[in-house]
């Protein structure tokens, strides 16, 4: 028999028998063995004092300490801003090398470069930006000699929130490029031709056909960018030395530092990050279900 059962299957509700969970069991086993079990200490420790007794004090401090609340706010701000900016510009780059008609070798070069740059972080990245835009950076010098403009006098400062955002983008753009390039590849030529045939111009094609199709992928990538920036530590530490209080630096201070060493509080802050990621994921899922509605 050649007819497929496609239409019928689309309407039928998927069976929720336990057999359906077999396929994801390896993943869950792996996650338990290598992620969840080792992180148990995170969960348990956030409710423990240094002496080992149960306490809600760590959690309470999350809400009572001004510094911690501010840190969450700043972390979220930086992550959201770099996710958005990274998403938009990264998308434009991905567009340029896929649908945008640039020569093939440029695509290969950018894709492989993005692979490397996506992980270029920490002290080397901070130093690279200091050498470019710091007070003795070469762009700063060029601006001074050729354009007679001292950007630091004009209020720019690399060691600031904006400077950190600028630096974070170095690994956010490539990440977006890498995830979106395959998605842009999936845009079928036929759709564009069909749209053109129906009288749409380029802008209409993009607004009404291409972007809606791509939107779930774009959103998915942006949440990845958000998480990427949210969990970043080494770059912020290297560039601002702890003077910009973000959550990862505060956690590091509690867990690794020579001094403060209240791991329970550190774990509690990490649990706070878990909650924030969960909430972001919830928001993203909701957005995605709205946009994926009419996609099979």
């Amino acid at each position, binding site marked *: 028999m050649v007819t497929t059962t496609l239409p019928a299957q689309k309407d039928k509700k*998927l069976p929720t028998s336990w057999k359906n969970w077999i396929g994801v069991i390896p993943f869950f086993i792996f996650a338990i063995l*290598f992620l969840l079990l080792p992180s148990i200490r995170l969960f348990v420790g956030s409710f423990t004092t240094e002496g080992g007794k149960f306490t809600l004090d760590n959690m309470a401090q999350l809400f009572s300490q001004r510094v911690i609340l501010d840190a969450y706010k700043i972390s979220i701000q930086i992550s959201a801003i770099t996710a958005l900016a990274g998403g938009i510009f990264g998308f434009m780059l991905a567009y340029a090398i896929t649908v945008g008609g640039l020569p093939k070798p440029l695509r290969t070069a950018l894709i492989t470069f993005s*692979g490397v740059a996506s992980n270029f972080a920490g002290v080397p990245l901070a130093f690279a930006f200091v050498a470019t835009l710091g007070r003795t950076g070469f762009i700063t010098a060029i601006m001074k000699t050729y354009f007679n403009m001292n950007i630091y006098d004009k209020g720019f400062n690399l060691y600031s929130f904006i400077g950190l955002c600028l630096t974070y983008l170095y690994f956010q*753009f490539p990440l977006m490029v890498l995830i979106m390039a*395959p998605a842009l590849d999936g845009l079928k030529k036929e759709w564009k031709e069909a749209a053109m045939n129906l009288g749409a111009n380029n802008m209409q094609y993009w607004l009404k056909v291409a972007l809606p199709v791509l939107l779930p992928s774009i959103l998915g990538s942006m949440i990845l960018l958000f998480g990427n920036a949210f969990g970043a530590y080494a770059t912020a530490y290297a560039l601002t030395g702890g003077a910009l209080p973000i959550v990862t630096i505060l956690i590091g201070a509690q867990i690794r530092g020579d001094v403060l060493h209240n791991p329970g509080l550190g774990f509690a802050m*990490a649990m706070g990050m878990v909650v924030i*990621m969960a909430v972001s994921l919830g928001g993203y899922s909701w957005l995605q279900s709205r946009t994926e509605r009419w996609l*099979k």
Partner: protein
Amino acid sequence: MTWLSKIRKVPFWSWFWFVLGVLYFVLPLYATLDFSLRMERDTISLKAYQSAFSDPEFLKTFLYSIFLAAMTIVVSIALVVPTAYWIRLRLPQARRIVEFITLMPFVVPAIILVFGLIRIYSSPFTIPFTSIVLMQPLTNFKVGTNILIIGGYTVLGLPYMYRSVDTGMRTVDVRTLTEAAQSMGANWGTIITKIILPNVRTALLSGALLTFAIVVGEVVLASFLGIPAFGPYLFLLGQHRAYEPAALAFTTFLLTWAAMGIIQLVTGGQSQAAGAH
């Protein structure tokens, strides 16, 4: 599209974004390179590079990290592709929880992960309530430690690999492909290896590149598990010097880029133009 309209369509905006991107990426690298060449006063020299590379450990640890990266990529793909596929096809309910798990590595600091791994896997595996030892602790022998670090690296790369594969599968209609293949009599093994994998190849490549970069540059897991990897070596060398770290950073960038080019060649490169399947 006729050739006439193609010529008219010089992709100005594409070039615009591309050049902007290139500027942004290249300038900081140039600044690093420039600094690294100035180890000798008032002249450009390769002294910093000579100093950094006089150590045979450089190549040894770099190759070892590449080996670990390759293993991690294999494990990652074997883990993520069937899972993403299964979720798409049979179990959308699990999507949220799996995505949540794949985002967890962002918020679990690497140092907690490594100490957790050590704590759990440093005691022998026994059958509960007996003292029968099934296996010596993983940390006691080399293969065991390698297993631990590959597991740890896979965890670190999970967000990127899963997101890549998921995006790739979304643009390829896996459901129709599967049904078409099934109606032709293919079994699951054939479907996954011959139908699904080739179609998500660019996505797999993205995921592999990301994982590779993560593994080669990783420091915390490797240094606490006592693995002779590239990351800890770089740290040992460059911490307190001035010029060598810049030389090392630049070289590592180039070497990793070259390695990625090779990965690209091995996997057949970008054969997909927009929309062509």
